[in-house]
């Protein structure tokens, strides 16, 4: 295939069928689309929208920041500003016709061709936040009822159950008790304290943990136990800190989700929230949810798991008798490294627990997104191949680390795990993926 026809193929957005997009779009007319977007611009198109779209000089310097652009043979339509041109610019141009096809294409662009990873912000001379602009369009898509089906399903789950995975209240408690029982075989006096008032730590995690990765609850319980932590989890909704609604543009639902999460912690009079290893949930709790609720900062102190691990290692509350001895590389998740500068803390934990550490390049704030973030992986199977192909640069970056000897890739984010697993598999990289908690659990002294 010559490069040209390949490019044409990648530009054919209609090759993918998504029921959420198609069905939603089938209910629209150009007039309705215009009306909804105009109203959105009027109501929420604030100074940032104006400043960003006016300041952009179309220089294209943001292009090389974006893994989609780099991975798809530098397709200009995938550069950050290129995505703005196809979506926001047309919406803001009152004369442009916004037909049903436009909405379908825009929806695919903003939901599946941008991970909201904000890497471009640190390459644009103006600091233009393309992720913000993409989210603005997603909000419009949400208001039009045109959202990829799979991610909308998780948003529905949030709306009806206050967790991402349709976990029923009794299933949640069952899972906790089941993990407590399992752990007691190993550590007889271990407890998973439910609804314990006044604890130091309110532990929250993401819906997929009780659903698919219950052993992570087990591991964390062991870590808490060995560190002598005073912790608790709530029995009622609020235990799930994840949030797909901020990615579908359903900010009303985001506000409800974060409110119930913070309130669960405050009802239990916990001193602080410790979150599990998830990047997007961190973004939601720390950066988006509080703003949506009108608070500058979260109403009570909160830390990501990395910070908690670093703390107990520094205070020598757990012991690492023997370090993890296979060479490890580390993927800096955007939402907690670009989004909270936890790169140093993560490296501290790795150096305390692993014997050989190989840096990826680029790394820290400049690391490439895994391609899953921003709700892209949650758009589900229809977009899977596209997602993996849109992150060839990630595969190259990982392959370079593997060639230097890395065998294990650590990624302290659930979403990253999803994306990286697909990349490792598709590009046959042969790396093993782990959470930081996996490493700590494996190496720590447990009696």
């Amino acid at each position, binding site marked *: 295939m010559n490069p040209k026809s390949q490019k044409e193929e990648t530009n054919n957005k209609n090759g993918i069928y998504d029921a959420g997009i198609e069905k939603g779009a089938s209910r629209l007319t150009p007039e309705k689309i215009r009306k909804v977007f105009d109203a959105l611009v009027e109501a929420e198109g604030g100074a940032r929208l104006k400043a960003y779209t006016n300041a952009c000089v*179309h220089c294209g310097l943001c292009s090389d920041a974006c893994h989609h652009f780099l991975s798809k043979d530098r397709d200009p339509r995938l550069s950050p500003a290129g995505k703005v041109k196809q979506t926001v610019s047309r919406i803001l141009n009152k004369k442009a016709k916004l037909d049903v096809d436009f909405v379908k294409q825009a929806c695919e662009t903003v939901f599946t061709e941008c991970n909201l990873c904000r890497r471009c912000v640190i390459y644009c001379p103006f600091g233009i936040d393309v992720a913000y602009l993409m989210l603005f369009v997603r909000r419009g898509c949400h208001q039009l009822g045109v959202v990829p089906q799979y991610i909308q399903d998780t948003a529905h789950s949030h709306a009806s159950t206050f967790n991402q995975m349709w976990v029923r209240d009794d299933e949640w408690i069952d899972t906790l008790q089941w993990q407590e029982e399992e752990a007691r075989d190993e550590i007889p006096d271990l407890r998973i304290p439910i609804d314990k008032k006044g604890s130091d730590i309110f532990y929250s995690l993401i819906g997929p943990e009780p659903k698919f990765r219950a052993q992570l609850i087990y591991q964390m319980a062991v870590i808490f136990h060995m560190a002598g932590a005073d912790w608790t989890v709530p029995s009622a909704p609020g235990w799930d800190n994840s949030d797909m609604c901020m990615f579908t543009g359903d900010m009303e639902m985001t506000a409800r989700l974060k409110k119930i999460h913070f309130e669960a912690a405050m009802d239990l009079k916990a001193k602080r929230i410790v979150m599990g290893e998830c990047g997007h949930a961190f973004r939601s709790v720390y950066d988006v949810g509080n703003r949506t609720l009108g608070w500058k900062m979260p109403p009570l102190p909160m830390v990501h798991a990395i910070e908690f691990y670093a703390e107990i290692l520094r205070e020598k509350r757990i012991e690492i008798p023997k370090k993890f001895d296979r060479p490890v590389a580390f993927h800096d998740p955007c939402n907690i490294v670009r989004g909270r500068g936890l790169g140093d803390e993560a490296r501290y934990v790795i150096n305390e627990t692993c014997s050989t550490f190989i840096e990826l390049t680029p790394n820290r704030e400049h690391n490439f997104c895994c391609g899953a973030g921003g709700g892209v992986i949650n758009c589900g199977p229809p977009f899977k191949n596209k997602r993996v192909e849109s992150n060839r640069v990630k595969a190259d970056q990982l392959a370079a680390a593997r060639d230097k000897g890395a065998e294990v890739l650590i990624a302290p984010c659930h979403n990253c795990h999803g994306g990286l697993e697909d990349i490792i598999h598709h590009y046959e990289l042969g790396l093993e993926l782990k959470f930081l908690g996996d490493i700590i659990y494996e190496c720590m002294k447990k009696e």
Partner: protein
Amino acid sequence: MHELYKLASGIFVWIAILGFAAGMIGRLAHLAVTARKKDPVVYQYFSFYYALRSILHWIIPFASTGMRAHPVITVVAFVFHASLIVTPLFAAAHVILVMESWNVSWWHLPDPAADVMTVLVILGCLFFLIRRIVQENVRYLSTPGDFVLIALVAAPFVTGFWTYHQFYGYETAGILHMLSGELMLLCLPFTRLFHMALWPFTRGYAGSEFGALRRSRDW
């Protein structure tokens, strides 16, 4: 011809200066008010320290990763922008003109320096023009307005160079120089050239969010 000269050196100067000032202040004020009304987070998170930290990393050549990755455009952009701002403000002819009209004066550039910087601006415009046409991703982003803008910026410098060197028809060129300069000044607040005024705010806001809120770096 003489009439036009009188206009260009008289009333048009005032229109341009006043239009420029009013446009700048008006648009910035409008943004400030919009931010208050619809984007209060902008005020909440804005931090002068981190804004300045970011601005410094983007105003010093090669202090950001992006600039190091694109050395050619970094050099061109810095030389271009510096010459673009310095030349009109400090060209001897301008300073003398201002002194004759309003009796205020300031330091001025030696003529050869102003001449070189004028050429640099023109070459910069050419570079940006060619880049827009040749580089696929930049071409994709380019709108007709972007090309007009390059012409708009180049015009006062081309005509200025022409006038200074007294090439054929330099009297006409002199009038065109004034007109195009005034036009550019007037366009500054109302076109993409407004990026000049927005830059400290967008960059500063990115710096604030990245520094104060996210404890990370944006360069």
